[in-house]
């Protein structure tokens, strides 16, 4: 298992869209390396014969996926305009 680097954590932070400060990067890198080392335990298991678990329910048993009107205001923050939610610009 290769060591977890600060650059890796920074990149993962970006993939997960979480801005991390330098102090956080320093602290997390060592902690995350410790956690990953612990998870590496999984590597020592002889698993050839074990199948991963799967859901019991058949796809055909699911209820129909039909849209239904929802009464009530499902949306949250105070940034609105003309009844729409305001988000950051796309480009």
């Amino acid at each position, binding site marked *: 298992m290769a060591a977890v680097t600060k650059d890796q954590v920074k990149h993962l932070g970006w993939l997960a*869209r979480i801005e991390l400060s330098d102090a956080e990067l320093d602290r997390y890198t060592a902690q995350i390396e410790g956690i990953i080392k612990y998870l590496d335990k*999984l590597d020592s298991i002889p698993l050839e014969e*074990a199948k991963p*678990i799967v859901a019991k329910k058949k796809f055909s048993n699911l209820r129909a996926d039909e849209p239904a009107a929802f009464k009530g205001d499902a949306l*949250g923050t105070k940034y609105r305009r003309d009844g729409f939610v305001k*988000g950051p610009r796309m480009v």
Partner: protein
Amino acid sequence: MELFRLSAGQAAGGIKGREFSAEEYVCQLLERIKKVEPKVNAFVTVNSKEALEQARALDKKIRDGQDAGALAGVALSIKDNICVKGLRTTCASKMLERYVPPYDATVVRRLKQAGAIIIGKVNLDEFAMGSTTELSRHGPTRNPWDISRVPGGSSGGSAASVAALECAASLGSDTGGSVRCPASFCSVVGLKPTYGLVSRYGLVSYANSLEQVGPVGRTVEDVAAVMNVIAGTDEHDHTTAAVDARPVYSAGHDGGRQQQQLRVGLVKEFVEGADSAVVKVIYSAMDTLAKQDCRCEETSLGAVKYALASYYTIAMAEASSNLARYDNVRYGFDDLNPEGYEWNSYFAKARSNFGEEVKRRIIVGSYVLSSGYYGKYYLKAQQVRSILRKELKSLFKHYDVLIGPTMPILPFKIGEKIEDDPLKMYLVDVDTVVANLAGNPAISVPAGFVAAAAAPGDDGGLPVGLQMMADEFQEQKMLDAAFLFEGAAKVQRSPEL
């Protein structure tokens, strides 16, 4: 009469029998909350006004001779990651600071239909990620038995509010032990149902292949009564499909059922790593069961050694995926205006407001799901689940329940395990994650008290919980065993506050 001391069953009986009104009962609980909250800090939101209104409406219903429901007037607290219409549901996070759900979770809807009163929302570790209820935006909840100690977590507010007599029962959620751990630390009863028995609709997802909503109460009977209301299929949660529409459980009082000799297996891997003081209580619990004519012996569950690594891999992977929805655009907090931000940088900025533990778990989750690592971690973790299930299936041919300590250690001091090394906190979940990985039901029942090593003799001691696990959908057998033990061990009492 101190109505706040009543169990759920006693309260419903008294209210329906018009010995006292639901309003009097709720008033007393609100007084109690006011008195002990400065010490315990279990509640995030106290629902005073609406709880009183619900109580008065219920009293009228009873006066009019209408059916008031199985939990008539019983006051419950709800973990703040389960949606109650119109009540802020924060998950103890800045990321949901302003979120007010426009709907009831199925479990909450069913409680209300059964006449229960929602007295408030209770504290948790942020997004249910933690084992101490310290990692909350609302500050730590304290253990009613010793307020310098943690109540366990993540449903610490649920267990503490029930132990501190601020409500009769509570709903928590259990992803890796989050109902049972605080139940054990606070000396109350907490049940994690079989996966799929209780609807998760309206529970804020953390790791949805592991978690279930579960009841906390002061007696096994109360926990069974709440299960009878919340369990069963729900068209809003397709994972509940394999279940009876409405299973009915009883806790020993039906008399008619022929009790067969219970076969009890003590899992030696559960006691091996535990504190000696805890182990002593668990062996004496086994003696108690043996004296009740149970057939008790030690047994082994070899795959326990891989359980934690498997659990944390799956929990963090699912967390990283589930928490991707929090972008602060559709709901969230108010003090970050999207004006002037580009899409990605706004998300990254907004999401930096997750707490430390949540950020860490999202990043580790992203790591184990990265291309090239999937087969090494996630797939193997899923294989461990099937090995565990196989081992458990064969054990349950010989035993009705498997027992061990719920927690391997005593409740520890606030701050003790959340300093530098998050792994230290993860390791205390070793005995509880098995039931989540395999999907089995498990319950924590108060087993006794031991004096704290650091402060011997200064108090009545710290609680130890006995965990019982049963085969899938064998909640009734598990409740029978728990009821039998509760009656024989007689450790139920309440803390001085």
